[in-house]
């Protein structure tokens, strides 16, 4: 049996993926843009980010390019929605198909098939003196930089939405864009910025998989996590502080079902692979009282 700390550490790594994507969806959702294209953004950013890291030898530039990729796709989504008035869900789904095609296409063209799968450069772990040796805290604070980035991004998002005036205005856009507009908030600009920022977080989460978690690029490596993160965002009631909790919950299900698969040999492994997806539905049914949506979500805003 694997030690508790090591399982907890593993859960934190998966929490990072789920939370960053969910946070990206939450940030855009607060302004009324429901980004369901997260899976496609993750895949594309995983491809571009991994290749950048591999060819440059720098993991940091890999994440940087992944963030830019995410931002570009997010801008595409929000601009088409706001200016061409196309349904957000339609563009989101198109984005998933687009991302699935683009990610593998780019990888096939640029890297191609090799005997040995290219490996991402080694990412250093950051240890915090004093904390990184304490048993349980060690699992939380003995990680690669992106884990700390996820902690920071969640904290900043919370502070922004609940402790700043711009954050309050931004939340107002999601509830009643007309009212925000009347008091002089530039609705479209905020929506564009929020979606771009959120999508760059999704991009970083996408690249986290090949650069750190697996170390190599595989087709369809996000494996539906971009969709599950939509469930987390809804479950979290579009609050950043709850998105990290939801991310932790889903990560725990994923890691534990993997552990169970190893330790319970009688049950076919496919049923353990079903667990994370089934638990999304279960969690949403159980916690449905907490679920509320920003009122304007899904609707383009026009001054009329």
């Amino acid at each position, binding site marked *: 049996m694997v030690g508790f700390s090591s399982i907890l550490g593993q859960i934190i790594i998966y929490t990072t993926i789920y939370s960053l994507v969910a946070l990206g969806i939450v940030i855009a959702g607060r302004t009324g843009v429901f980004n369901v294209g997260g899976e496609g953004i993750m895949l594309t950013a995983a491809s571009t980010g991994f290749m950048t890291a591999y060819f440059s030898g720098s993991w940091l530039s890999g994440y940087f390019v992944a963030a830019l990729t995410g931002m570009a796709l997010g801008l595409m989504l929000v601009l088409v929605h706001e200016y061409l*008035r196309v349904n957000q869900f339609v*563009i989101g789904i*198109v984005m998933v*198909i687009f991302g699935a095609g683009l990610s593998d296409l780019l990888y*096939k063209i640029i890297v191609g098939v090799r005997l040995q799968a290219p490996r991402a450069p080694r990412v250093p772990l950051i240890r915090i003196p004093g904390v990184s040796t304490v048993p349980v805290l060690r699992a939380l604070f003995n990680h690669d930089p992106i884990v700390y980035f996820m902690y920071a991004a969640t904290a900043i998002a919370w502070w922004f939405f609940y402790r700043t005036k711009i954050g309050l205005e931004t939340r107002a856009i999601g509830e009643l864009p007309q009212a925000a507009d009347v008091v002089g908030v530039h609705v479209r600009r905020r929506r564009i910025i929020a979606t771009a920022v959120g999508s760059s977080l999704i991009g970083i989460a996408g690249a986290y998989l090949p650069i750190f978690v697996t170390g190599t690029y595989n087709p369809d490596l996000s494996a539906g996590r971009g969709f599950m993160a*939509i*469930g987390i965002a809804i479950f979290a009631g579009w609050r950043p502080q709850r998105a990290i909790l939801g991310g932790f919950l889903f990560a725990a299900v994923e890691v534990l079902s993997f552990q169970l698969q190893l330790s319970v040999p009688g049950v*076919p492994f496919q049923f353990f692979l*079903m667990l994370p997806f089934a638990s*999304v539905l279960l969690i949403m049914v159980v916690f449905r009282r907490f679920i509320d949506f920003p009122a304007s979500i899904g609707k383009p805003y026009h001054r009329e």
Partner: protein
Amino acid sequence: MKGRSTVARAALVYLASIAAAFAVTMILVAALGFSPWRALRTLVTTSFRTSFGFEETLKKTVPLIFTTYAFTIPFMIKFFNIGAWGQMLFGGTITAVVALTAGETGLPGVILIPLLLTTGMVAGGAIAVVSGVLKTRYGINPIISTIMSNYLAIQFLNFVATAGPFRDPTEGHPMTRRLIAAATIRSWGIVPQAVVPALIASVVVYLMIRHTRLGYEITAIGYNERSARVYGINFNRTLLLTFLIGGALAGLGGTIEVISTQRRLIEGFATTSGAQFGMFGIVNALIVNANPIAIPISAFLMSVLLVGADALQRTMQVPVEAVLLSQALAVLFVVVTRERLRSR
């Protein structure tokens, strides 16, 4: 008069989309350093050059028609069924189980085939209705629940193909035993018998939408949900029915894929051609804008492209993703154009 201009407009958007899809593909292919004219010829003519190619194209068209309807019918009341993929896989999986079990009883094909077609519809409809109930009872967005059901169905299919009493022990790759002849359908020359249920389903869906009370209610909710409710239309009931019908059709597509094309259940079908049907069903539905007459035609043209894309990969090593990508862009282009035309 107005009716004719709408049809002309729809056709125009559609033709423009095909042109755009080809243009984008050709630019991509040229950018990758391949000859765009040769690629174009491969894409368009592979389906018509050999009788095998034509039969393949029709065999792809049929499940695609069903997955397109599975997305289209709930979409008419503005709900997204992203689960045609899983509904199709689940229908196909249960069909394989029933076919392998019932096949041993020696039932004749006349009984077995209708039984299997019904099985697929019931299985696909059942899993889709779960998503519908999650919406009406618990308010869970069907986008989430249908996507989750896709992943559940994939693992369930892999389980049935890999484990248990159905697996063929002589095959290296996990798959079930071959279905007995009475449980399969064949082709008349180059036309697979599978086109019959697809055509019947298309006519039935058309009649349902245009000439039944349910179709009227679906149309009314699609135009204006609030006033439809005010006029006493039972929204939840209609929602459940759209998911039931959509899922049943996707399940039927899965049955046909199993009894006509594969004649067994193969592990990994979910992520290869199964994924194509799931994804391109949505693409097709968005392109034709839920027009029930255009769906079979468009599904056929899309299958021509898919068969051509496979050939392109085999003969010219052009990655098949290039076609996927250009299809996604084509949808975006069509949707934007349609939106511009409407707002004018």
